[in-house]
């Protein structure tokens, strides 16, 4: 399994805004937050094909998601729209500021994950049960 280290950021997108206003349980919302954006050379390094899922992990947790190619991102930087998938990777440490470190944390991406991507319902259940 090919792997690369990246610096991960999350943030807002228009689609995410449109989707959340329809409702968090809508398809539009899920579609707007269930993927990671990668630079094309990084996608190549990972040997990714369009239909592949990727697994992203770091000390805080891991998540399996779809992926998209984006120009504008340098190699080594990845972006996940702000939401329940992205939040599997951020931690509770705020260094006494109250604010977790949401932008610029390290993460590992593995290509062609065989695991399934969780649905929103499944994420909620896993959070409820503490897993």
């Amino acid at each position: 399994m090919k792997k690369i280290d990246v610096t991960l950021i999350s943030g807002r997108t228009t689609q995410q805004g449109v989707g959340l206003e329809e409702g968090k349980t809508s398809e539009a919302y899920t579609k707007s937050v269930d993927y990671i954006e990668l630079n094309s050379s990084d996608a190549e390094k990972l040997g990714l094909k369009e239909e592949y899922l990727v697994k992203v992990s770091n000390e805080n947790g891991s998540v399996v998601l779809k992926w998209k190619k984006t120009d504008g991102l340098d190699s080594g930087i990845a972006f996940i729209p702000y939401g329940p998938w992205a939040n599997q990777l951020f931690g509770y440490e705020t260094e006494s500021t109250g604010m977790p470190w949401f932008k610029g944390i390290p993460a590992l991406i593995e290509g062609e994950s065989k695991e399934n991507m969780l649905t929103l319902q499944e994420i909620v259940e896993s959070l409820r049960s503490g897993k």
Partner: protein
Amino acid sequence: MQIVTDIVCPFCGCLCDDLEATIENNHISKIKNACAISRSKFLNHSKNRLNSPTIDGEKVSLEKALDAAADILSTSRRPLIYGLSSTECEAIGKAVEISELTGGVIDNTSSVCHGPTILALQQVGESKTTLGEVKNRSDLIIFWGSNPTQAHLRHLLRYSGISKGLYTSEGRKKRFIIAVDIRETATAKMADQFIKIKPNKDFELLQALSAAVRGYEVPDVAGVSKDEIMELANRMKNAKFGIVFFGLGLTQSRGRHMNIDAAVMLVAELNHHTKFLLTPMRGHYNVAGANTVTTWQTGYPYAVDFSRGYPRYNPGEYTSIDLLAKGEVDAALIIASDPVSTFPANVVRELAKIPVITLDHKISPTTMLSKVALPVATAGIEGEGTAYRMDGVPLRLSKLLEPEEGVKTDAELLDMIIERIGGKR
């Protein structure tokens, strides 16, 4: 059929107030002047609504749900009251009252958004303005760690880059727009200059700029060449009216409030040379209101603890993430927010361990995880009230439609909870 004009949009900190809605049969059929996200809010307002009060997912009467909520709050030793950025000011005041009555903690979404900006203000200040001055006078606009083309869609049109005003009749032509970001966003693409910065190095670059503004020589910093830094410093000094709009790129990366501190000091320094300001790009349409109301009622903007009977403030201790991570609250009342979607997962796991009461208009991961969920009228569409724009300008939200039968506003529900708690404590 009715056409209503001058509607205030309840989505983001832009708080645009020029929307026009066509209302037919208590339903919004058309909306004008709305950005894509706003359009979604107005036209989809009836989709995915919380249909009924529930306890553990089971439908119950409103009275039963309120009794359960009041019971949880009055028997808890230290409840957390959180959210508030997507509802109106009267409700926020009631949330403060509940926190005081229960000896709990009140916090709002600025905790995970522009809280660091407030921390910086409390350290060094802030030189700001309402948005009309930007429209009327600016010739240099810098978006730092902010991407309005994706998050504040009409900002450029109404207030900044493209707007035309009193001394800026030529609009975009006579403005120089710079985007500072770690990636080339759509904002960066439309800017006159894109300065790409290495992740987590904003503090260093801001300090270098301050030094350059004072006439010191600087090296390459944060992936930006010293020539680019000197050029930017000079451009800032020679602007007639410059402004930095900054976003979560500064508040959420390494350094947090120190990044803003550095930006504030840079702008203060520039005031020796010319007119320069900075303004945070507030996310939700009334997060500024949440801070404003909490401040005038308690003295503090967020993370306010009432366990001793008077307000105490300590970000890092009374902020929601920290309280939940350390298991220091035993119940939660979430109002107009979805922390299950927005908090780090291992914090949400802690939230899931305590009884949660949520007031929201739509189904969300938070309502799904709640012990008690209460549907509310959508503020700004089904309920009136005040909201504060990102620059502090207060506007009145409209009531365009009647909510569904039996559905109350946040303020009404909170009042009913207060009545029930008042008797129990």
